[in-house]
């Protein structure tokens, strides 16, 4: 039912609006990555259930259809996903956690000294910090390493919510009344591929204050995620 509504909404908007319609958060945000295995859809970073930990979530390959066998949602072995953490407010990462699929598992690496601050990365196999079997709907796998890191990879419900159809109508000049109340979640019923890492804050080290000009004394990490393809 949701899928039917979803497709009907796309049809109603017309092909010209399709590229506008399907982008939100970072889903299909640019022509070169749209619909590819490097397309990052969302990034989350929050304090864990254990307040001594931070959780990083990277979602890729969005808008996987509801009801579709999750076996069709496959991580690409040629795509490296990187969590970047800057502690010194120069927007150059000081800590790096890398994730890549091999066979039935996701492998994680954390180089001790990060010399990979540009657009090209390599993997040093000796810096592996963890591995977890990729989950399915019925077989949910997580792992923990000796330092207290936790790892997960697999298809999940897309946590993003937004009435993107109506936003498209507004941008197109078709909705002078603005948003509808209540709105309709365009991303309801769709899945993504999630990579989740929980990291003890002690393993990241403390950030220096100054990232936020509105609150200069706050100690904030600058965090972002990158997707890189093997050449």
């Amino acid at each position, binding site marked *: 039912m949701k899928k039917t509504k979803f497709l009907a909404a796309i049809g109603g908007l017309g092909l010209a609006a399709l590229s506008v319609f399907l982008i939100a958060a*970072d*889903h299909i*945000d*640019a022509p*070169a*990555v749209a619909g590819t295995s490097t*397309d*990052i859809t*969302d*990034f989350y*970073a*929050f*304090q864990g*259930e254990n307040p001594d930990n*931070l*959780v990083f979530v990277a979602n890729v390959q969005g808008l996987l259809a*509801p009801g579709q066998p999750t076996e069709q949602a496959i991580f690409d072995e040629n795509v490296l996903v990187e969590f970047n953490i*800057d502690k010194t407010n120069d*927007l*150059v990462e000081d800590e790096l956690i890398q994730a890549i699929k*091999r066979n039935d598992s996701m492998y994680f*690496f954390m180089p001790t000294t990060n010399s990979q*601050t*540009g*657009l*090209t990365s*390599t*993997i040093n*196999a000796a810096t592996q910090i963890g591995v977890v079997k990729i989950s399915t*709907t019925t077989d*949910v796998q997580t792992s923990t390493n000796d330092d207290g890191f936790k790892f997960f990879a697999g*298809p*999940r*419900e897309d946590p*993003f*919510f*937004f009435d993107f159809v109506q*936003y498209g109508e507004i941008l197109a000049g078709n909705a002078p009344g*603005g*948003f509808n109340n209540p*709105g309709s*979640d365009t*991303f309801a019923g769709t899945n993504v591929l999630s990579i*989740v890492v929980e990291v003890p*804050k002690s393993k990241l080290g403390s*950030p220096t204050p100054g*990232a*936020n000009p*509105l609150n200069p004394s706050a*100690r*904030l*990490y*600058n*965090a*972002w*995620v990158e*997707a*890189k393809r*093997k*050449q």
Partner: protein
Amino acid sequence: MKTYKYITIIVVIFTSLLFVQCSDDDDNGNVLGEVTCDDGIKNGDETGIDCGGSACEPCAVEALDFSGNFQQEDQMGRPGINTVFGTTGMKDAFNVTIPSEMGAAFQSSFESNLMALNPDYTTNLLGLDATVFTTVLASDALWVAETGVTTYYNGTEVLTGRNLTDDVIDVSLILIFGGPDGSEKPTLTSDFVSSNDATFSTSFPYVASPF
């Protein structure tokens, strides 16, 4: 020619083995058939060459190949930045620009886009004028508090992380359209979708099961 050499080598090997067998009168007459863990061949119940099975050491796990250079194709810090502020022809470039270089490359075009989205923009709930606001946004990294509450906005704390439950769209809409006190253009400051359609776990891995 090479085939002849190969055959010659095999013949020499077999001849020498026969010689060993025939000259050794004390053995049990079964030298050629004996299975050992160092004979260089996969035999007996070995699962690999001289490994596995009932007698030999387990075979080593095949080494995984992590080699190669990986080139950046996508990047994301805060939600919706490239989607909302990236301009046609610059979205791909934004994704392959490192954050330390984003401000210089994209702030002015972000500011133009902000003013195109909301020509009435003066300042916003955070007190940021168009230049300062787009300067903050153009460097696309998510601020994450070392200690305390992490949230995109919870009514008190602002931009200290991003929870799965955070209504980042409404926060963005208010900051773009809501004016200095968030009350301007009320039909554009919320999409009236305030939560996800699945419930998140409070425990790892937090994200919900797929449909």
